[in-house]
């Protein structure tokens, strides 16, 4: 198992390399020389050249073939990889801050928002899904499914706008904007849960119903196990694999925050930071974001595999 985990963790190298390559391709190859974006519309050619030279945009993209043996890797992409490998995340162009500082500052507000949202939604979705599975085929089940699908058919924007306008602004139940005390997070978290729970309920219900019709459930029922015990001890336990897959894979994306909620409610998290960076052509922030994201993603994948062995002892990692 140890060897398996190490092998899987090593896949972080090709995955991260691929992620950086895609991002690099987007911003430097399709996007053209970033110096034009940095310098603005009225820049002189000399200024462009100066920025290009300072930031190394005048170097070849992938390999420096002109200076073949001694500085082959003196090119944009290898330099970027080298910089990130030294864990140097660079500097933001617009705020002149270190990207690592910005990430550290944005991390906390983002997690304050996404973690409670994620937990609440998960608990609520699994409870409702168990409820629907318990009443499977009846009008309660069908009603829950329809309501879930209806809930996921409304744009997240609309949830936010309506709640912010009526609940916060008109009725003054919640603060409208800002990040000053935990109370400021209540409404965004609630909106996030309501907007997201429909899809999750539908997913978990499907997973649980699939287990409901297995032979071992029939056996359990035949030997007189009570319905709640069947649901919690048998169905939930066996539905754990798809649930875990779904849950753990979502965790790395928590750190990018909730773009919409952060924007609407003025929460200074990573989501807002990333969107701003994208429009300011602030590449270092984007590269840092996807770099960390891909590492977390690989780690989450490995944790999923380990969790499988815990949820289902029949699974062996080799």
């Amino acid at each position, binding site marked *: 198992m140890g060897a398996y985990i190490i092998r899987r963790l090593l896949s972080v190298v*090709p*995955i991260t390399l*691929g*992620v950086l390559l*895609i*991002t690099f391709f*987007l*911003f430097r190859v*399709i*996007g*053209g020389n970033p110096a034009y974006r940095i310098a603005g519309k009225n820049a002189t050619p000399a200024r462009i050249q100066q920025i290009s030279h300072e930031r190394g945009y005048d170097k070849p993209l992938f390999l420096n073939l002109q200076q073949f043996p001694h500085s082959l890797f003196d090119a944009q992409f290898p330099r970027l990889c080298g910089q990130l490998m030294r864990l140097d995340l660079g500097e933001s162009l617009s705020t002149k801050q270190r990207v690592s500082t910005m990430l550290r500052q944005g991390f906390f507000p983002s997690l304050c928002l996404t973690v409670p949202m994620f937990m609440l939604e998960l608990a609520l979705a699994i409870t409702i899904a168990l409820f629907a599975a318990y009443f499977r085929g009846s009008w309660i089940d069908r009603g829950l499914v*329809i309501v879930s*699908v*209806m809930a*996921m*058919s*409304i*744009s*997240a*924007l*609309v949830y936010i*706008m*309506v709640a912010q*306008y009526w609940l916060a*602004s008109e009725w003054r139940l919640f603060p409208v904007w800002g990040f000053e005390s935990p109370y400021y997070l209540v409404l965004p978290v609630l909106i996030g849960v309501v907007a997201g729970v429909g899809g999750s309920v539908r*997913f978990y219900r*499907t*997973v649980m119903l*699939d287990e409901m019709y297995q032979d071992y459930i029939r056996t359990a029922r035949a030997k007189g196990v009570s319905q709640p015990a069947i649901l919690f001890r048998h169905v939930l336990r066996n539905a754990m*694999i*798809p649930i875990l*897959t*779904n849950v753990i*894979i979502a965790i790395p*994306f928590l750190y*990018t925050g909730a*773009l*919409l909620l952060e*924007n609407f409610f003025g929460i200074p998290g990573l989501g807002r930071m*990333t*969107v701003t960076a*994208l*429009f300011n052509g602030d590449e270092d922030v*984007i590269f840092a*974001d*996807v770099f960390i*994201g*891909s590492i977390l*993603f*690989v780690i989450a994948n490995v944790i999923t595999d380990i969790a499988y062995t815990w949820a289902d002892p029949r699974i062996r990692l080799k």
Partner: protein
Amino acid sequence: MTAAATTMASPLPTDTTASAPTGLWQIAWRQLRRNRLAMVCLWILAAYTVVWVYAEGVFWNAHLRGVTPTYKISHYDIRNQPPSLAHLLGTNYAGRDNFGQVVQGTRIAYEIGLLTSLIVIPLGFVLGALAGYFGRKIDTAIVYLYSVVDSIPGILLIMAIAYVVRGAIDRSPLFQNVTRYIDSGLLAICFGMGFTGWVSLCRLIRGEYFKHRERQYVLAARALGAGDLSIMFRHILPNVAHLVIINFSLRFPGLILTEAVLSYLGVGVSDEPSWGTIINDAKQRLWLGNWWELAGATIAMFFLVLALNLFGDALRDALDPKLRTAEAKTG
């Protein structure tokens, strides 16, 4: 093909009394027809499609004659009016009829669904088929490719692609003839959603090709001397084509919702009234109590997305009941 079709359809409750339906599609249609909810959704979708065709008519009529389309003409004397008989959904900040805007939004929604699928379906299908059919190194490479795409937060990658591609489209003389008819912002988000959305289809098709390449009909075709390409696209393809349709009908509602979010974040459609841009514009005047702008687009979007979601589910259950859990397990 018929052999495979019957094995796939076997879990369906087959009607023993009536004349036995033949083939996957007839059986599926029969089951759909019995599903009242699915039929209601189908009618709703038909109604939207009529609206879409009408909106395309309005758009192309104005474009080909070189005049400004009516939905883009401003009437500053009737700005921000609440719903009335003349303007069922009121008017917006430029005095344009909100109902007309919402109708055009239907056109944009359909265009997004179709254009994105023009990227997703060929890319996802061909890569999935190659990976599943050949296995080994090709499979490893394709799985690697989609793992990489998967490990970038979806909305971020879509935004980045859309943002960069938009700039490239606007600069490139190649696209000038295209952007005269299709908004460059719309084209850009279709690129963004297309180059991220192929992953789920690819995964699905790959799994199916894995199963089918060992089936007897494939072995028989190979024994008769059929080449790989012919087996992949002439023999296996008809047996998995229904997955593309299911995948499309379940992906389409997501695209419509994503478009709204992208518009808010500033990378959406720029010069045409999409539901996203309408909602986004409405945001500024909701604070003045102008609820109708928001309501119109929201309701239009809600019923289309709802009908697509429910119909997609029913279609999947009718065409391939095993798929539901397969999808749930792979996410």
